[in-house]
């Protein structure tokens, strides 16, 4: 009995120990994913210890694209059982991933590692991602895993912790997806560009994707003109509004890896006045499509690579009986799904006794995600002699990429009765015009570069400027300005010369007047007045020459001024000596000391000095 009790206690302990052992497990939110489709990888640590685990190491996501994360979610649960209640804490790390385009599955995600609260190293399980179509009902919001709890959320604070998990970081983005990554040459690959935005924003495409190496057909949009139709979608835990921006049907032109370049656009919020703000530039990924060569097995010679798809062939004439010279319209129609625009319609064979004209080709494309429609070639043929002509059966060979085989579509032979008389021109058989001019092949033309979708078109300002008035003004103004400058300079020089001449004339006039007055004083015997006049004429001449009043200057001040203005010292001394002599004669008690001869000499000296002052290159202006 005691033994049984002991055994029960051991079992109970073992059970409790098992319950207490932390678990660390990884999972993904869906069993299979399509290439490019986001999915969530979770790894959850459950333990009965409180606290934060340390040293979390995510697995190596080799072969996958990491779109976001990790986001960490923590929770606390009360677990009842094992003879009591215990508190269990969970920590979940989540990553948003996608399988890279072109990856072949399955992709294995290795173990994650973390150090538990007890210090032990924990390793999660590996997870395998199967590549394929998305599981039904799982293309929308991935479900976040949560540990079951028997208590209302929030009772133990788990609500708040859960809300601390990732803040909304939803950013707009463009996604380019192709319905297939490998296709035969000429087989349709549908590429869809989708806009993901957290809220509706102004969308402005800036760069259209380049699809060199493909023939491209735009699939008509189902959006109303000028706006997008949005659907709500949960993407990696974030709520998005999703719109199809563009869909194109691409047909590879040659085998090999072909690239569809990224689409680029600007998205922005719009304020009350319609002005964009918080502008973001977004760009889709480039897509690589592998174009496979068409199978050689069963391929007819000279098979045109545009004839890939499912087509039917109809041949008809608008009348079965005509007269010679009347025109008959022979219509060859190819209908079906594929690159209808470039499908090579079988040539009309040579019909003896008939003349043909240039055919008219009409292509009608239908809406829908798959390129389909019809190509009609109308031949105008005219019989030149009577009889019955059989238009032979025409054969269209195409490759069906679904069944991976070559298929023949054949028309029925058609008889045309021609009545009346043969025309002169029917002397010999005339061939019907060839479907294509000689020497031309039927290769599919390459796709054109897409339109430019900037906000405003560029303007060639240079070209407009060249033909405008601005250019003529630019041509005329510089030489005119140059001539103007030259003229102004010349006029100023002339004016300056005139000024000097005027000044000199004035000097002479002053001198002549004063010297006459001095001579009159001499004749009248007024010696003092004579010397006053001589001194005045010299000082006035100097004032006029220097443009500075020198009347009140003392002898030494005048000497310094003359030296500063460039009068040679010897001449300055002569001038000062004459002025000193005048002073002496005026203020000497006996009046004039040497009589008339001295006055005659003084008059001559003054005249010579005036001439000297007039000719001397003295600096002018300023102050004394």
């Amino acid at each position, binding site marked *: 009995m005691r033994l049984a009790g002991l055994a029960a206690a051991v079992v109970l302990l073992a059970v409790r120990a098992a319950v207490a052992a932390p678990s660390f497990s990884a999972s993904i939110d869906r069993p299979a994913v399509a290439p490019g489709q986001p999915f969530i990888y979770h790894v959850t640590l459950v333990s009965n210890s409180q606290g934060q685990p340390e040293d979390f190491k995510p697995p190596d996501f080799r072969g996958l694209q990491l779109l976001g994360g990790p986001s960490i979610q923590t929770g606390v649960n009360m677990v009842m059982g094992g003879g009591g209640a215990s508190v269990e804490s969970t920590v979940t790390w989540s990553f948003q991933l996608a399988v890279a385009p072109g990856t072949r599955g399955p992709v294995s995600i290795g173990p994650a590692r973390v150090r538990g609260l007890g210090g032990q190293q924990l390793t999660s399980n590996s997870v395998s991602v199967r590549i394929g179509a998305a599981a039904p009902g799982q293309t929308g919001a991935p479900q976040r895993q949560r540990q079951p709890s028997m208590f209302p959320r929030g009772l133990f604070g788990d609500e708040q912790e859960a809300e601390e998990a990732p803040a909304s970081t939803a950013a707009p983005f463009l996604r380019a997806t192709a319905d297939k990554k490998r296709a035969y040459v000429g087989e349709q690959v549908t590429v869809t560009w989708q806009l993901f935005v957290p809220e509706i924003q102004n969308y402005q495409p800036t760069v259209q994707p380049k699809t060199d190496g493909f023939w491209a057909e735009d699939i008509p949009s189902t959006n109303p*003109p000028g706006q997008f139709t949005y659907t709500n979608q949960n993407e990696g835990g974030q709520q998005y509004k999703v719109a199809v921006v563009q869909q194109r049907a691409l047909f590879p032109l040659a085998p090999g890896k072909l690239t569809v370049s990224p689409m680029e656009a600007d998205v922005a919020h719009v304020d009350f006045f319609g002005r964009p703000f918080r502008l973001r530039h977004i760009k889709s990924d480039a897509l690589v499509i592998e174009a496979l060569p068409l199978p050689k097995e069963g391929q007819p010679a000279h098979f045109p690579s545009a004839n890939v798809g499912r087509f039917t062939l109809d041949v008809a004439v608008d009348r079965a009986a005509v007269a010679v010279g009347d025109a008959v319209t022979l219509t060859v129609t190819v209908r079906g799904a594929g690159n209808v625009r470039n499908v090579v319609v079988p040539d009309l064979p040579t019909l003896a006794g008939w003349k043909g004209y240039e055919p008219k080709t009409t*292509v009608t494309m239908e809406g829908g995600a798959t390129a389909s429609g019809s190509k009609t070639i109308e031949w105008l043929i005219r019989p030149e002699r009577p009889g019955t002509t059989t238009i032979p059966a025409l054969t269209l060979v195409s490759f069906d990429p679904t069944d991976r085989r070559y298929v023949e579509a054949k028309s029925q032979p058609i008889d045309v009765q021609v009545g009346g008389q043969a025309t002169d021109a029917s002397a010999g058989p005339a061939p019907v015009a060839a479907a294509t001019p000689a020497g031309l092949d039927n290769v599919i033309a390459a796709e054109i570069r897409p*339109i*430019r979708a900037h906000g405003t*078109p560029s303007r*060639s300002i240079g*070209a407009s*400027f*060249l033909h405008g008035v601005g250019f003529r003004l630019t041509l005329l103004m510089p030489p005119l300005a*140059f001539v103007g400058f030259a003229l102004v300079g010349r006029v100023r020089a002339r004016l300056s010369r005139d000024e000097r001449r005027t000044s000199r004339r004035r000097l002479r006039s002053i001198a002549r007047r004063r010297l006459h007055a001095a001579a009159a004083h001499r004749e009248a015997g007024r010696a003092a007045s004579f010397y006053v006049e001589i001194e005045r004429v010299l000082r006035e001449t100097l004032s006029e020459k220097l443009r500075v009043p020198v009347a009140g200057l003392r002898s030494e001040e005048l000497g310094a001024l003359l030296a500063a203005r460039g009068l040679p010292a010897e001449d300055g001394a002569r001038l000062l000596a004459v002025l000193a002599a005048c002073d002496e004669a005026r203020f000497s008690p006996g009046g004039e000391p040497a009589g008339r001869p001295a006055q005659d000499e003084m008059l001559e000296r003054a005249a010579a000095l005036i001439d000297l002052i007039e000719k001397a290159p003295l600096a002018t202006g300023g102050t004394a």
Partner: protein
Amino acid sequence: MRAALRGLAVVAVALVIAQGRARADRVDEAWRRGNEAYLRGDYAAAVAAYQEVDRQGLASSDVAFNLGDAYFRKGALGPAIWAFERAIAFDPNDDDARYNLDQARKLAARRARDRIEGEDKDPAWMRLVGGWSAATETWAFVGFYLAFFVVLVGRRWARHEWRPALIAGAALLAVGALASGALLAGRVYLDRIPFGVVLPDEIAVKEGADVNYRTSFDAHAGLRVRIVDHDQDWLRVRLANGLEGWVRAQDVGRI
């Protein structure tokens, strides 16, 4: 009186600015409408919108290019070729336009191709002038020309020791102005030589300016011709080999 005149001047300037602004808005709106219609697959509406932008006299390579794409998608290869030719005329370095022009010509050749025997190449000066855009030639000349005069006038106030260097600089600028001026003169002359592109898939080129004249030869979409004369609604066109004839003016798009 003076205040009234000043007020009138302010009003006139404001009117001019407002008019320019309104025109720019009209251009942008039509451009956006064209792009949206194109992306929607409504190529006829796109053509109409781009033509509306074109009528504003924008001289834009982008507008011509998008118009070409819209015509191409619409299946109108002649007009598409014409539009791509215009885009290249605006910007000879527009590789996208050259690429699309090439594609449109290839496609047009599948329908019909004009073989011109004895075709002469454009003379060297024409190829030289055509190798640059009008904008590049204009700005190069204006830059050299203005700089030359600035240096020439500035020499008067320059320090004595700098004058030889300024004279040498002015000589170099004069050479640059002459070379770019010659290029620009070539451009102006070339612009006066009207070229055009055949728009319909096929036209009959007549011996005279009337539908009753005999047909000299047929021409097909995308054929580049030189317009040498006109008579009411008819144009006399010359092919690269000198062959001439008359066509309706509406059938030829001027580049």
